């Protein structure tokens, strides 16, 4: 295969419709006779529901239906949780609260009206009598003795305990020169895709067909779950994910509204739309992170790490969503990062609190792990008065150590960590940065340099390690006209598969990328698939496409060889032709061979007509991209403001299909990390009120908050898939947070500060400097 398109920065095929505003997200779709749903949500974090009075709302103008939890009792199953951990307690989220509410924003009633304004007005007419209960907000208090359990039948608020240990930990700590301990808080975050969620459901009673449009990352899993929740035949459910305006994990879930809106459409026999408001998105779409880590590390004086021990308190919120309990366990698996640490132990306590559930948010458990281990490396460096770069280098596995087995049971596929580190040091001119820092410190200016060397688990993943299948499907169908449909289960929401898969197809079949149509997100067209998350679209979904392409190619080679009288093994696909290697004259146009497959008059003996292949690709392992990020900040001594000065990212995601898109993913991921490091924090007050409930109070990074991001790459292909690609969707987010944290701690080192919990809000930094200003070195 000649790679004319793979590896090239092709412009995206999906962009023309997006930049002209003529594509369709859920809320852009309108069906005849559409009705609108609106949800009444609990203002209390914890309360018994004494009564819900819908009588006024039911009589309001335009209202056709109003329901409370009692009205749908038993009709809809609770929100599913696919993650299973031994001995975990049940905590299923009802689609509408019945007797008790357990977080602010939990849906209590739903109204359907003829337009969205009437639906909203009717909410004000619903009267709910609540009996407020004491909310449990702090996870440490939630598991303290005497705390009242949130869920009936539980004896406490511990959802589960999970442990993992590898290597001889006792020996490690016994032979250590030093043991360093630190408590780290990985704050609660709100994913905030710019498009909120939205659902439309339409039911055709004659055919019994239920169609649900949802802003989802997982159309097929959603279809199965809606069918189960409603006890509706799965064969008659069609789920469509139209354009999806960002997800970051928050749309990798099954939500009450998805089943409820479908239920309402069935009840009413009318199409029903629900568009999530931003406030609802803050309160009732999954949150991310929220871990308290107590970590201990055993080190030698020379900087080598002997053992790592960690206890994580994971705040799960009030109920499980699809993957809630699974997320912190990924932190456990990844805890030793990109280092050769002989022994490690992780204990996780999952805790129920009166908050929205946490679940997969970009990186999902791995940013937490990288943050944990990278903070540890910085603390070790500070304690041993070594350069953070050298401590890292000291503990890297070497290229010939791969495949490398971690004490947590993972097998890292391939890597050359030092190469990426060296490249980053060179791009950043690390030596010079350190000199500049020393000079500025003398002037009373506080510049900090943070280094993060990371590895991540991507390409999720073998089914044995996944809660609901880790494979991906793809069908490639060459249509009679020679155009190619690629049906992928990796339903994208900004990742650009329509382009990258077309690039791949073009090289495999020797035709132009414009000949390809990548179809996704419609369960009635695309074979069952898993979805886009965990940086798996290219590594797993792409491989499925690649394998289907090869199958189609092989068939075409046979047809072409049969037509020109040559050997299928010797057929070359290029420039829209299929030619025999030995003679350019023995050649057919691509379309001619395709036509032969359909007209079926001149096919080789025993060959089926048609030109279509489907693959369900099961990866043998995860992939493990890695890299080095270097961040430079300067802190305003008077205000505590952290200003980004430079950012260098060297990422290795294996082979690259489209460098432009890879760069975009890396930059976006880094900025999402900047958000966590500098601004973002979901704050619940003592009463469980979410007081960062709108974008007026929850700050996302703006263009004006950032510096130029300098990116570079090393390429270490993975042996896990034939494309050698590893995945890049989360790299930026996973690599960047610790680089920022390291830079801030480094800037504050003259104040005797070695660790600060995120987010690095001005006042926090200002207080730290002020408190220790007497100790400035």
């Amino acid at each position, binding site marked *: 295969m000649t790679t004319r398109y793979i590896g090239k920065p092709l412009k995206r095929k999906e962009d023309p419709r997006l930049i002209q505003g003529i594509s369709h997200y859920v809320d852009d779709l309108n069906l005849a006779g559409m009705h609108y749903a609106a949800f009444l949500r609990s*203002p209390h974090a914890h309360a018994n529901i004494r009564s819900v009075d819908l009588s006024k709302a039911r009589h309001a103008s335009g209202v056709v239906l109003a329901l409370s939890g009692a009205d749908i009792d038993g009709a809809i199953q609770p929100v599913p949780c696919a993650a299973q951990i031994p001995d975990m307690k049940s905590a299923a989220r009802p689609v509408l609260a019945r007797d008790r509410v357990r977080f602010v924003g939990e849906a209590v009633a739903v109204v359907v009206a003829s337009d969205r304004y009437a639906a909203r007005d009717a909410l004000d007419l619903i009267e709910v009598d609540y009996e407020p209960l004491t909310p449990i907000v702090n996870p440490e208090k939630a598991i303290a003795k005497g705390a009242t359990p949130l869920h009936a039948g539980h004896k406490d608020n511990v959802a589960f305990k999970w442990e993992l240990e590898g290597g001889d930990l006792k020996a490690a700590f016994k032979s250590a020169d030093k043991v360093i301990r630190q408590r780290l808080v990985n704050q609660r975050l709100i994913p905030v895709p710019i498009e909120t969620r939205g659902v439309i459901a339409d039911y055709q009673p004659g055919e019994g067909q239920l169609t649900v449009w949802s802003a989802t990352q997982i159309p097929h899993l959603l279809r199965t779950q809606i069918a189960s929740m409603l006890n509706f035949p799965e064969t008659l459910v069609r789920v469509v994910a139209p354009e999806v305006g960002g997800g970051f994990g928050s749309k990798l879930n099954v939500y009450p509204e998805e089943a409820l809106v479908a239920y309402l459409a069935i009840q009413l026999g009318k199409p029903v739309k629900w568009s999530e408001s931003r406030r609802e998105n*803050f309160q009732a779409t999954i949150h991310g992170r929220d871990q308290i880590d107590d970590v201990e590390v055993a080190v030698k004086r020379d900087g080598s790490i002997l053992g790592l021990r960690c206890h994580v308190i994971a705040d799960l919120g009030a109920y499980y969503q699809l993957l809630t309990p699974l997320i912190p366990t990924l932190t456990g698996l990844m805890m030793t990062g990109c280092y050769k640490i002989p022994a490690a132990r992780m204990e996780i306590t999952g805790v129920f609190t009166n908050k929205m559930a946490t679940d997969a948010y970009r990186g999902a458990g791995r940013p937490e792990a990288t943050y944990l281990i990278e903070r540890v490396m910085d603390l070790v460096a500070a304690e041993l008065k070594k350069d953070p770069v050298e401590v890292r280098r000291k503990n890297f596995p070497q290229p010939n150590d791969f495949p490398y087995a971690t004490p947590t049971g993972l097998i890292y596929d391939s890597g050359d960590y030092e190469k990426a580190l060296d490249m980053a040091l060179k791009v950043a001119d690390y030596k010079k940065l350190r000199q500049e820092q020393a000079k500025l410190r003398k002037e009373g200016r506080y510049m900090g340099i943070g280094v993060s060397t990371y590895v991540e688990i991507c390409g999720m993943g073998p089914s044995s390690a996944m809660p609901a299948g880790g494979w991906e499907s793809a069908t490639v169908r060459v249509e009679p006209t020679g155009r190619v449909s690629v049906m992928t289960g990796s339903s994208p929401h900004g990742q650009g598969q329509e382009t990258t898969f077309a690039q791949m197809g073009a090289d495999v079949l020797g035709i132009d990328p414009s000949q390809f149509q990548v179809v996704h997100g419609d369960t009635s067209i695309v074979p069952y698939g898993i979805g886009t998350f965990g940086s798996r679209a290219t590594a797993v979904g792409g491989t499925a496409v690649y394998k289907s392409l090869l199958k189609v190619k092989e068939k075409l080679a046979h047809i072409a060889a049969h037509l020109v009288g040559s050997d299928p093994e010797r057929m070359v696909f290029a420039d829209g032709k299929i030619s025999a290697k030995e003679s350019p004259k023995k050649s057919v146009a691509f379309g001619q061979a395709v036509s032969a497959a359909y007209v079926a008059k001149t096919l080789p003996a025993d060959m089926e007509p048609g030109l279509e292949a489907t693959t369900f690709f099961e990866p043998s392992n995860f992939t493990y991209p890695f890299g080095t990020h270097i961040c430079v900040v300067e802190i305003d001594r008077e205000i505590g403001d952290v200003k980004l000065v430079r950012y260098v990212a060297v990422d290795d995601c294996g082979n690259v299909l489209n460098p432009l898109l890879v760069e975009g993913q890396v930059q976006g991921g880094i900025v999402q990390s900047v958000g966590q490091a500098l601004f973002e924090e979901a704050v619940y007050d003592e009463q469980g009120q979410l007081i960062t409930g709108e974008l007026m109070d929850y700050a996302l990074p703006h263009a004006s908050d950032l510096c130029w991001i300098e990116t570079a790459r090393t390429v270490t292909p993975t042996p896990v898939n034939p494309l050698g690609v590893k995945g890049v969707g989360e790299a930026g987010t996973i690599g960047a947070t610790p680089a920022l944290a390291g830079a801030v701690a480094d800037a504050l080192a003259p104040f005797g500060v070695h660790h600060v919990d995120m987010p690095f809000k001005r006042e926090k930094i200002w207080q730290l400097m002020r408190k220790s200003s007497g100790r400035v070195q």
Partner: protein
Amino acid sequence: MKLAGTVTLPAPPSEVWSLLTDAPRLSRLLPGCEQLEPDGPDRYKAAVKFGIAAISGKYAGTLEFAEKKPPHSLILKLDGKGLPGFVKGEGRIELTPKGDTTEIAYTGEAHVGGLIASVGQRMLDAAARKIVQQFFDSAKAELESTKGAAAEPNSPVKAHRKGN
């Protein structure tokens, strides 16, 4: 949200006490109080319009006195809900004679939930302070206007007042 402070009112504790515990008079002090009706011993149903400028909402709820130690101290409990959210507060009021006047020390805590908690956050503290200040300003004015005169006897325990 915590509130605390002291204020001096121009009357001896006995008069201040009767002002604070007499529902109809009290209703005139509470900013925005539109209705206060008895609902059991030391307990009243209240309808209040709270807010600042454009941001205001109607709340229905209860007002309760507890641990009354005339004329020294009492606890005032407020509980209300409306479309913008709910408020639940408890305040302890202590009266100390200072010559002809009374020094009032108050400490209280209020919990606010719903819409106002999540979007009005940056204004809440100041709004609460303002409401407390208005309350004591009205009390001052009331005491000054009735100075020397005995409190009105047994007016019907129902008070209405139009908005603020």
